[in-house]
């Protein structure tokens, strides 16, 4: 019989080996550590700090082009740690846990039929706006419209949405969907900002009625309220000032008034400051992820069909140089492949198309050797030939043809 402690150790080791097998050493450590802390720890401040340290290290390594064999992507590690910190933080906050418990238990307060319809409407709106505004702005507009229609302006909704998107971001990076991860990171960052703004606005708005409504309740309730709001010595000082005839409606001295409002402000500003710090860290991390993705894109020479039109000229034709001298070479044993490819290109408007055989006849992928790096032209050729992938190599300036296309056996 294995003891529960041994089972736990085995569980963590299993996870470590699994991540190590599929990904890298650093990620394996991070994931295992994160899981351990998420279950057993209540300290989130240190984790936030640690993720920030990793993030700074990542920037330094990148800038000085330093790489380690056992570290694959520090930004991903810091992301996971940040997420874990958020999780532990959320666990420690009664308001947030209550919110989720409420949502899970009754299913009524948050997801009533009206709210559900509004949620669907907001999602549809976001989807419709997606092509025009791009993912981040579309999601934000969808959220804001939901807030407006449902009259729910509390920041907790934005935080929930932010965490939802943030939690998916690393997984998309693991599964090589950098584009989605990038958008999710940006969206989560915006949501955290919106949440902080909403919470700030809420706190500022609630400040006034709090101060004026307090005297209306009975003294016992007042004590309870104060005990929640202020520390005991301060409470004693306040009751003293009240006994001298001061009330919140009609304070006797300016000092006591200022003292109370300052205390309220400082107590309420604390979580805001925390959130602002968190938002800053998230923002910096989002920036790292985005820059990582952009860099990896720039290095990638083999583009996919999905990227094809990201650089398609908005004005259709004048940007494509069809006067280039093309050579289509058959790199396979399929007879007539070069001729049929040449015919397609001619039909697409290319005037100078030549045909021939490549030096080898065992090409699997289609290749292109181009004198100039003209992405528009290359993408246009890819769309004409319906090629999903096309490896592009640089030709020397003295090459006879502007472009040489070597047809491979992987037919489009």
């Amino acid at each position, binding site marked *: 019989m294995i003891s529960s402690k041994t089972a736990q150790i085995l569980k963590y080791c299993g996870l470590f080996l699994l991540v190590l097998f599929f990904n890298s050493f650093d990620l394996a450590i991070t994931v295992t550590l994160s899981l351990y802390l998420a279950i057993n720890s209540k300290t989130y401040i240190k984790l936030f700090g640690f993720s920030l340290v990793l993030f700074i290290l990542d920037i330094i390594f990148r800038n000085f082009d330093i790489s380690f064999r056992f570290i694959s992507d520090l930004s991903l590690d810091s992301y996971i740690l940040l997420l874990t910190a958020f999780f532990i933080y959320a666990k420690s906050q009664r308001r947030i846990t209550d919110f989720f418990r409420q949502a899970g238990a009754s299913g009524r307060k948050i997801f009533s039929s009206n709210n559900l319809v509004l949620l669907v409407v907001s999602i549809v709106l976001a989807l419709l706006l997606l*092509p025009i505004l791009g993912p981040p702005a579309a999601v934000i507009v969808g959220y804001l419209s939901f807030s407006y229609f449902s009259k729910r302006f509390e920041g907790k909704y934005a935080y929930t949405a932010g965490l939802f998107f943030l939690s998916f971001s690393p997984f998309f990076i693991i599964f090589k969907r950098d584009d989605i991860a990038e958008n999710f990171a940006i969206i989560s960052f915006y949501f955290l900002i919106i949440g902080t703004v909403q919470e700030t606005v809420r706190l500022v708005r609630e400040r006034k009625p709090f101060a004026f409504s307090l005297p209306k309740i009975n003294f016992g309730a007042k004590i309870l309220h104060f005990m929640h709001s202020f520390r005991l010595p301060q409470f004693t000082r306040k009751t003293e000032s009240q006994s001298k005839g001061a009330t919140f409606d009609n304070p006797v001295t300016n000092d006591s008034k200022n003292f109370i409002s300052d205390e309220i402000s400082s107590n309420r500003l604390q979580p805001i400051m925390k959130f602002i710090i968190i938002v800053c860290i998230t923002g910096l991390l989002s920036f790292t992820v985005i820059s990582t993705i952009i860099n990896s894109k720039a290095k990638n020479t083999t583009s996919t*069909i999905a990227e*094809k039109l990201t650089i*398609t000229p*908005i004005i*259709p034709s004048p940007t494509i140089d069809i006067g280039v001298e093309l050579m289509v070479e058959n790199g396979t044993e399929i007879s007539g492949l070069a001729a049929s490819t040449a015919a397609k290109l*001619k039909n697409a*408007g290319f*005037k100078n198309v030549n045909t021939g055989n490549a030096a080898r006849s065992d090409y699997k992928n289609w290749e292109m050797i181009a004198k100039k790096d003209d992405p528009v032209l290359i993408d*246009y050729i890819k769309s004409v030939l319906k090629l999903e992938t096309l490896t592009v190599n640089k030709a020397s300036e003295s090459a006879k043809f502007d472009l040489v296309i070597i047809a491979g056996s992987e037919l489009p």
Partner: protein
Amino acid sequence: MKKYNHLLSFFIFFALAAIITFPLVKSGYILTLDAVITPRVLFAPITSSSFIYQNILAVLNLFIPSDRIERIILFLIFFLSGWGMYRFTDKNLRFARYFAGIFYAINPFVYERVMAGHWQLLLGYSIFPYIVTLTMNYFHDSTKKNTVSLAIMATLLFNIAIHYLLIFMVFFITMGVTNAYLHRQNKEKLNKITRQTIFFIGLTFVLNANWIISSILGISDISQAIKSFTSGDLIAFQSVADSRLGLIFNLLSGYGFWAEAYHYFLLPKDIIIFWPILSLAVILVFGIGLFRHIKEKSNIPILVTLPVLFLLALDIAGGVALKSFAPTVFWLYEKFPILGGFREPQKLVGIVMFCYAYFGSFGLGKILATIKGKTKLAAFSFFIILPFIYTPTVFGGFWGQLKPVWYPSSWEKVNQILKEDKSDFLTLFFPWHQYMRFKFANDRVVSNPALYYFDKPILSSQNYETTSLYSHDTRLESLHVEGLLSIEKEGVNLLGDLVEGNLPWGESLSPVNVKYIILTKDDDWVRYKFLDKQPDLTKVYEDENLVFYQNMKWDLKDKQLEEINFDEPLAPLE
């Protein structure tokens, strides 16, 4: 009072349409990019999606000359769109309704499409407010009478502009779902709507069965056209961006038509340099109207449906030009061939204009309600004048660009010669372009009208000649001509093989049954002067407009056919 308002609005929009079309009232044909009107309006086959519309025109043409029919259509575009939108808007808005009508009739979208000759699309655009009204009535009170009216009008709309089939479908479904949700407690009403909807779909199918069935069988004009479309079409006819303000703002301003990149005609924004400010004013008044609608929660079905339609229209109009959306667009067009009808998606900007006009009237109504005195008058005047300043090019015969013209007399002379020849032959038309500048058409780029003008079959180019899409033409005869032109100009055939020596055009054209050649002296016609040197081509007629040749080797194909002994077995290939 109600009758008086009705009559007043009728006369105002009648006068507006008359002012716009008056400079073109002179006899003659108005030739635009895609609209080529010839003396004869042909009857449409039963498989055509425009069967009813086209045949009504053909019957009218038996009594009225085609150039007059053309004027009536142009007049109706402006009159129906203005008056229709005016009537569609809320009666309580009073004068703000005129803004809706005028803006819907006069905006950059309408102007560009008139210049491009997409008049059928515009006629559909002009009757769309009536269809929307009927659909709203239908869901409000689902009686048999309303259902039949809607089915008939929808059929007319599809016949005039098939593009509106998809638009109407989206509109009807969104409206239906919203109404169903709103009346979810009222089972009786829901059942009634369901029954009538089934009846409506059935009736509409029967009324449109001619082209729907033939499209399913793949023998209609639509199915043939959609089959020929490729991803190249989407790239070639994608919406275009404004060089400074980008794609979305261009589309929101009623622009973005692919032809803008080719400078075929003058654009209003070329004249009005502060057009973005006017655009913003329209967008602002639209936003106020929409917000007012949301706040008051008035007419919820239309409040849900129109914004959905607006955003969808904007998404699809952006199409492949929206870089992040492009892969999805390709996927959608591949999986749903019906979308092929929108290979040139800027057509959907018409819906954007519709929403501007409708919500804009509410916005203006709100503005006028909040201000008083001279400011109110100034605001009202500004928004009424706005469409005129925003698109001034619709006036003065479309800024002097459109003029009625007659076909050159030589065209008719040649047509007479062709008609007198009773044999079965093709006439080749040069220059070999589908779109070119014709001198007689005020030197404007128009689609070659020869195919419809002459009474005998014409072999003319059907190439788009855009850099990203050269052609869809797969006719053997045209490929043959393309090959001969390639040999003549570049010394290589279509496969790139070198061909030496002079090309005998007469002999080479005989296999594709070309007996005559018409060379009009337009565009790059001088490049065809080699025809003069051909010994087997005889010049029959020449004037300042065209040269007419006869192929003396035309009957060679018969001799060649005679020489072939079909009873003899073919020799084995070596």
